[in-house]
C-alpha cells in the first residue's frame, strides 16, 4: 500500500529494478562475449601453433608444472655445489641444448635452462638401460641428492670419480656424449619424484612431432606461460565458443522478450524456457540445419552437385518413388480400414467392442520390425506359411508364390497392418468426443443411419480423419524397420534404407545421405504444416449439455456378419503374425512346421536369457530408455507448468521445437547427430550412450509433454487456488493437490517415452557403438546374421514386456491411461 501512497517511489523502484536487470543482462552478455572471444582466440592459437591437437596443449600444461618442479630440484642441487662446478654444469647444459638445435641457448636464464633441459632430455636424450633406470629411480631422497651432486660435479671435471650408479652407462663414453649421458641421468633422478611425468612426456611425444614444433613446445613448457584457464580454453575451445554463443544468444532473446513485455523484472520462468531451448538448439536444431547446409554445399560453397548426383542415380530415384508410393498407399489403405473400424467399435452394438478396441490399440505399441519379421515368415514366396496353405488349398503347382512379401505391395501390406492403428486411435478419440445428439438430430430429421454417417458423422470427423491419415503417411515414410527387413532382401529400396546404406559407406556416403535426408525432412515438414492447418481449422467443438451415454447404432441383421468380419480382420493382422512369431521362436528349422519331428526346441528362449551379450543389450536398453524417459518427464512437467499455468511470453518456442522434433523422421535426427556430435560443434558424444539417449529424447519428448500438458489443462486452476486459500503453501499444494491429480498422466508420460525408446531401431542402427548396443539392434542383428528363431524369441519377449508394462500402467492409473 505504501507504493500506492507514493507513486513516485514506486516508479523509482521500477526504474531501479530495470537498471539492475539491464546491468545483469549486460554482464551476462559480456561474459558470453568474453567466452566466445576466448574460445576463438584459443582456436586461433591452436591452428597457428601447428600442434593440431588439443591433447598437445593438455600435455604442455601438465609438463610445464612438472618441469618447474624438476627445475627447482636441480637448481637446489646446483646451488649446493661450489661456484665453478655449478657454472660448469650450467654451461654443459647450454652446450647440449645448442647442439640439440636451440639457437639462443646461450641467452636463456639459468632457471629456464634447467626446466627446458628436463623435458628436452626426457624426449630426446639417450636411452637408459632398464638396469640404470631402476638403480636411479630406486634411490631414496637423500641418496638421490648425493648422486646428482656428484654427477653434476663430474660434468666440469672429468677426473672426478663417477657415482657408482652411473658407472655402467658411462664407462665407454667421453666428451660431449659423456656429458649428455650424465645430464640425462641427473634429470631422470630428479624426475623420479614425479610419478605422472612419464605419461605426460608420452602424451607430448604422441601429439607433437617435428623438430620445430617440439622446440615451440619446450619453450612454452619452460616459460610456464600456459595457465590452467588458458589450457582449458584451448583444450575445449569449441565448447567454450558454443557456451559463449549460447549465453549471448540467451541474453539477446531475454532482452527482446522483456522489451516486448515492457517488464524489466527478471522472471525465473524465462530461465526455464531458455534452458530447454538451448538444449534443443544444440541437439536438434543445429544438427538438422547443419545437415541441410551440407546437402546444399558439400564443399563449403553452394552447389547442387550432391543432389544432382543423388537423383540421377536410378536406385535413389527408385527409393524416392517407392517411399512416396508406399506411404501414400499405406495412408489410403490404413485410413480406409481405420474409419469403419473406429465407427463399428465405437458407435455400434458390435459384439466384443471393448475387446476389439483394446486389441487394435495394442498393435500401436508393437515395434514395427516385429510385424515385418512375422509377415516375412507368412508370405515368403518359397516357404511362407500362407503360401503353403494356398498352394495346398487350390492345388497350385509347387513353385514360388502366389504371394510374395518381397515386393512393393508386400511392403505396403505390412506397413498398413502396423500403421492403421495411428489413424484408428486419432479417429476413435474424435468419435468418442463427438456429441451424439448431432447424429440424433439427423435421424429425427428423417435421415437413415447410413445417410447420417455420410452427411453428419463423416464431415464432422474430417479434420481428425485427415490428421490421422497424415500421421500414417509420415510414419510410413520415415519407417526404417519394415523396409530394412522386407525391402532390402527384395531390392525394394526406400529413402530410409538408402540413407542408412550411405552412412555405412563413410565420408562421401555421408554427403549423399544428407541429400536424401533433406528430401525426407521436407516431406515431413510439409505434412506437419498441413496437419497443423487442418487441426487449427477444427472448430467443431460443440456444447455438450449433459454427459449422455454415447448413442449406439443397432446393427440388427448386420450385427453377426460384421462382428465376424472384424474378428477375421483381427485374426489376420494381430493373431496370425504374433502367433507366427511365437511359433517360430520354438523352431529349429524355420522351413519345417512346429509339429515336424525334432523341430521343437526351447533352446532359443534359454539362449536369449543366458547369453551375456543379449543381457548386456537388454541392460543398455533399459538404462537408456529410463534415462530418456526421466529426463523427458522433467522437461514435460516444466512445459506443462509453463503452458498451462503461466502466460509467460516465449513459452511457445520450446513447445514448437519439441513438436518439430517429434515430427522429424528418426533417420534424419540420427544423421544430424552423427554429423555434428563429434566435437566439431563443441560437443563430443559420438559413440557414447548419450547420443542415443538424446536422440530418443528428441524423438519422443512430445509424447510425454502432450500427456502432462493435457492433464494439467484438465485440472482447473481453481483447485490449486482453493488449496492456497485454505492456507497451503505452494509445495503443499503441489504434493497434495496437483501431484496426485496428475500422477496418472506423469506415469503415462514416462512410459510413453520409455516404451518406444526401449525397442527403438532406426536411430540406434546409425548411432550405436560396440559398447552401446541395444536390444532392438541386437534383435535386428540376430535376424539378419545369426538365427531367425532366436530373433523371434527376442521379439516375442519384447512384445510380452511391452504388453506387461502397458497392463501395469493401466492398473497404476486405474484404467485412465494405457497406450
Amino acid at each position, binding site marked *: 500500500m505504501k507504493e500506492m501512497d507514493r507513486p513516485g517511489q514506486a516508479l523509482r523502484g521500477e526504474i531501479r529494478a530495470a537498471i539492475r536487470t539491464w546491468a545483469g543482462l549486460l554482464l551476462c552478455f559480456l561474459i558470453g562475449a568474453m567466452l566466445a572471444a576466448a574460445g576463438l582466440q584459443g582456436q586461433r592459437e591452436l591452428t597457428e601453433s601447428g600442434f593440431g591437437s588439443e591433447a598437445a596443449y593438455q600435455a604442455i600444461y601438465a609438463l610445464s608444472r612438472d618441469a618447474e618442479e624438476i627445475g627447482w630440484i636441480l637448481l637446489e642441487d646446483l646451488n649446493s655445489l661450489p661456484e665453478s662446478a655449478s657454472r660448469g654444469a650450467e654451461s654443459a647444459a647450454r652446450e647440449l641444448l645448442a647442439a640439440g638445435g636451440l639457437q639462443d641457448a646461450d641467452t636463456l636464464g639459468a632457471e629456464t635452462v634447467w626446466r627446458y633441459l628436463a623435458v628436452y632430455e626426457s624426449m630426446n636424450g639417450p636411452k637408459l638401460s632398464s638396469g640404470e633406470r631402476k638403480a636411479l629411480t630406486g634411490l631414496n631422497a637423500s641418496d638421490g641428492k648425493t648422486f646428482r651432486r656428484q654427477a653434476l660435479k663430474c660434468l666440469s671435471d672429468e677426473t672426478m670419480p663417477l657415482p657408482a650408479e652411473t658407472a655402467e652407462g658411462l664407462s665407454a663414453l667421453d666428451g660431449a656424449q659423456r656429458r649428455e649421458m650424465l645430464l640425462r641421468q641427473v634429470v631422470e633422478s630428479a624426475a623420479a619424484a614425479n610419478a605422472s611425468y612419464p605419461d605426460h612426456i608420452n602424451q607430448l611425444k604422441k601429439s607433437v612431432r617435428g623438430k620445430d614444433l617440439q622446440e615451440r613446445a619446450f619453450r612454452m613448457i619452460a616459460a610456464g606461460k600456459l595457465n590452467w584457464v588458458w589450457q582449458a580454453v584451448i583444450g575445449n575451445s569449441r565448447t567454450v565458443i558454443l557456451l559463449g554463443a549460447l549465453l549471448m544468444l540467451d541474453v539477446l532473446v531475454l532482452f527482446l522478450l522483456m522489451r516486448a513485455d515492457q517488464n524489466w523484472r527478471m522472471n525465473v520462468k524465462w530461465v526455464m524456457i531458455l534452458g530447454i531451448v538451448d538444449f534443443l538448439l544444440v541437439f536438434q536444431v543445429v544438427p538438422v540445419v547443419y545437415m541441410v547446409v551440407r546437402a546444399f554445399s558439400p564443399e563449403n560453397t553452394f552447389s547442387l552437385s550432391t543432389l544432382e548426383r543423388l537423383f540421377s542415380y536410378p536406385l535413389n530415384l527408385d527409393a524416392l518413388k517407392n517411399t512416396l508410393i508406399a506411404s501414400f498407399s499405406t495412408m489410403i489403405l490404413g485410413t480406409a480400414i481405420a474409419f469403419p473400424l473406429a465407427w463399428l467399435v465405437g458407435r455400434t452394438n458390435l459384439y466384443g467392442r471393448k475387446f476389439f478396441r483394446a486389441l487394435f490399440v495394442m498393435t500401436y505399441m508393437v515395434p514395427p520390425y516385429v510385424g515385418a519379421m512375422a509377415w516375412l515368415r507368412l508370405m515368403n514366396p518359397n516357404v511362407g506359411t500362407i503360401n503353403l496353405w494356398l498352394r495346398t488349398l487350390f492345388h497350385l503347382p509347387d513353385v514360388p508364390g502366389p504371394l510374395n512379401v518381397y515386393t512393393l505391395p508386400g511392403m505396403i501390406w505390412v506397413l498398413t497392418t502396423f500403421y492403421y492403428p495411428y489413424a484408428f486411435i486419432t479417429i476413435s478419440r474424435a468419435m468418442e468426443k463427438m456429441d451424439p445428439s448431432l447424429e440424433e438430430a*439427423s435421424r429425427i430429421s428423417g435421415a437413415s443411419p447410413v445417410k447420417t454417417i455420410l452427411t*453428419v458423422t463423416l464431415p464432422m470427423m474430417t479434420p481428425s480423419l485427415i490428421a490421422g491419415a497424415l500421421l500414417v503417411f509420415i510414419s510410413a515414410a520415415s519407417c526404417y524397420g519394415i523396409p530394412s527387413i522386407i525391402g532390402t532382401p527384395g531390392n525394394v529400396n526406400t529413402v530410409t534404407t538408402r540413407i542408412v546404406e550411405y552412412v555405412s559407406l563413410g565420408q562421401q556416403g555421408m554427403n549423399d545421405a544428407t541429400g536424401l535426408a533433406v528430401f525426407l525432412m521436407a516431406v515431413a515438414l510439409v505434412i506437419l504444416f498441413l496437419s497443423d492447418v487442418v487441426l487449427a481449422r477444427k472448430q467443431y467443438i460443440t456444447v455438450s449439455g449433459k454427459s449422455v451415454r454415447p448413442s449406439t447404432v443397432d446393427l440388427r441383421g448386420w450385427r453377426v456378419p460384421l462382428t465376424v468380419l472384424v474378428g477375421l480382420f483381427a485374426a489376420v493382422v494381430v493373431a496370425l503374425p504374433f502367433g507366427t512369431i511365437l511359433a517360430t521362436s520354438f523352431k529349429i528349422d524355420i522351413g519345417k512346421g512346429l509339429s515336424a519331428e525334432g523341430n521343437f526346441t526351447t533352446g532359443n528362449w534359454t539362449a536369449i536369457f543366458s547369453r551375456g551379450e543379449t543381457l548386456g543389450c537388454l541392460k543398455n536398453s533399459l538404462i537408456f530408455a529410463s534415462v530418456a524417459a526421466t529426463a523427458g518427464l522433467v522437461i514435460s512437467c516444466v512445459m506443462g507448468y509453463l503452458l498451462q499455468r503461466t502466460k509467460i511470453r516465449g513459452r511457445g518456442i520450446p513447445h514448437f521445437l519439441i513438436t518439430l522434433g517429434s515430427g522429424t523422421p528418426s533417420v534424419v535426427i540420427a544423421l544430424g547427430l552423427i554429423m555434428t556430435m563429434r566435437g566439431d560443434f563443441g560437443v563430443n558424444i559420438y559413440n557414447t550412450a548419450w547420443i542415443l539417449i538424446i536422440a530418443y529424447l528428441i524423438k519422443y519428448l512430445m509424447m510425454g509433454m502432450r500427456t502432462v500438458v493435457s492433464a494439467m489443462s484438465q485440472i482447473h486452476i481453481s483447485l490449486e487456488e482453493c488449496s492456497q486459500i485454505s492456507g497451503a503453501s505452494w509445495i503443499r499444494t503441489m504434493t497434495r493437490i496437483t501431484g496426485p491429480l496428475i500422477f496418472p498422466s506423469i506415469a503415462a508420460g514416462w512410459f510413453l517415452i520409455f516404451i518406444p525408446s526401449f525397442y527403438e531401431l532406426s536411430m540406434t542402427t546409425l548411432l550405436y557403438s560396440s559398447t552401446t548396443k541395444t536390444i532392438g539392434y541386437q534383435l535386428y542383428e540376430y535376424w539378419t546374421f545369426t538365427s531367425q528363431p532366436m530373433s523371434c524369441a527376442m521379439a516375442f519377449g519384447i512384445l510380452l514386456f511391452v504388453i506387461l508394462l502397458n497392463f501395469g500402467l493401466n492398473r497404476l492409473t486405474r484404467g485412465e491411461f494405457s497406450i
Partner: protein
Amino acid sequence: MATVTIRHVSKAFGENTVLQDFDAVFGDGEFITLLGPSGCGKTTMLRMIAGFEKPSSGEIWIDETLVSGGKTFVPPERRGIGMVFQSYAVWPHMNVFDNVAYPLEIQKKGKAAIRQAVEKVLESVHLTQYAQRLPNQLSGGQQQRVALARALVAEPKLLLLDEPLSNLDAKLRESMRFEIKEIQKRTGITVVYVTHDQTEAMAMSDRIFLINRGAVQQEGTPADIYNRPLNPFVADFLGKVDFFPGEAANGKIIFPGMGGQSLPYGGERRGRVQAAVRPENFVISPDGPLEGTLETWYYLGDVNDCWIRIGETLVRVITGGYRYGTLRAGEKVRLQVRDMMVFPDDGSLEEILSIQT
C-alpha cells in the same frame, strides 16, 4: 396434429429401472411438460417417444400407428417428429440455411420449395439475416433458434424439446419461453417438453407430468398441481413450501413446535400430520390465529422475505413489498393462513426434501 398414446411403458438399463409403468395420452395440440429432478426418467421417456430408446415393456402409439412395442419398432427417421436437443446439436459444418433445410432435403423436396419453407421458418424465429452464417458465428440463443427452426421446418405433427433452454442465460430463457409458446399456439402442434425448471413448466404447459424416481407423481394443469399437490414431494418441487409437524384432532391441528398453538382444520385427516404452507399464503394480520416474533426480514423490492419465530419454529412469510415501512424486527406479529395443505406424516418427508433439482 398428433396424439401420443403411451401404454404402461417401463424402461430399464440392465438392473436399473429408470421408468416404471408410464401410462398417458397426450392430446392433439396439447403442450405437455415432463417435469422432474435430474435422473427421474423424463428424458428417457422423451427419447423413447423419439425412437432413440426402446421401451423394456409397454407400447407407444403416435396417432393410430404403433411405433414402439412388442416386435414393432419404427426408427426415429420414420416417425415424422421434430426435436430440439439440450446441446442444440446444430451441425457445425453446415451454415444456418443448410442446417434448417436438411429435413426437407431428406424428403427430396424441390429447391424452390425448400428455399421458401426455410425462409419462412427462419423468419418466424427471427434469423433471416443469419442464413449464411456458420453456427460458431452465432450466440447460444441464436443456435437454439436454429435448432428450433430445423425441428419445425418439415411441419411435423409432434415436437419434442429436451431441456432446450437450460444452456441459456436467464433473460434469454424468459423470451425464448414465450417464443416457443407462441409458435405452438400458431401452428397447433403437439409439444412434449422436458425440463427440470418448474417456472418453465408452469408458464408454458397445458398439462404437467411431474415425475420422480421413474414414476409419475401427479399429472394435471399447472394450477392443479401447484394448488392441490397429491403428496409432499409435489408440494415441495413446485414453488416454496414449509412443513410443520402437527396433531390433527377436533377441527384443528395443534403444532407442538409452535408452543402448542393451533390452526383450524376442516379436513378428514386425524393423528400425526404434516401441514404444508407456502410462504406467500401466510398473511400478517392483527387477528390471525398464530402469534410470533418478527426475527429478521429482507427487503427484496417486490416482496419482503420475513422470518417469524413461533415457539421453536422459524416460519418464512412472504409479504408484499409495500409493507416495507411497517415491519420492525423484534415486534410481535399475528399470522393468518390463507391456504394449508395437510399430508399424513409417514416419516418420509426428510428424504423428499433432500431431493435436488
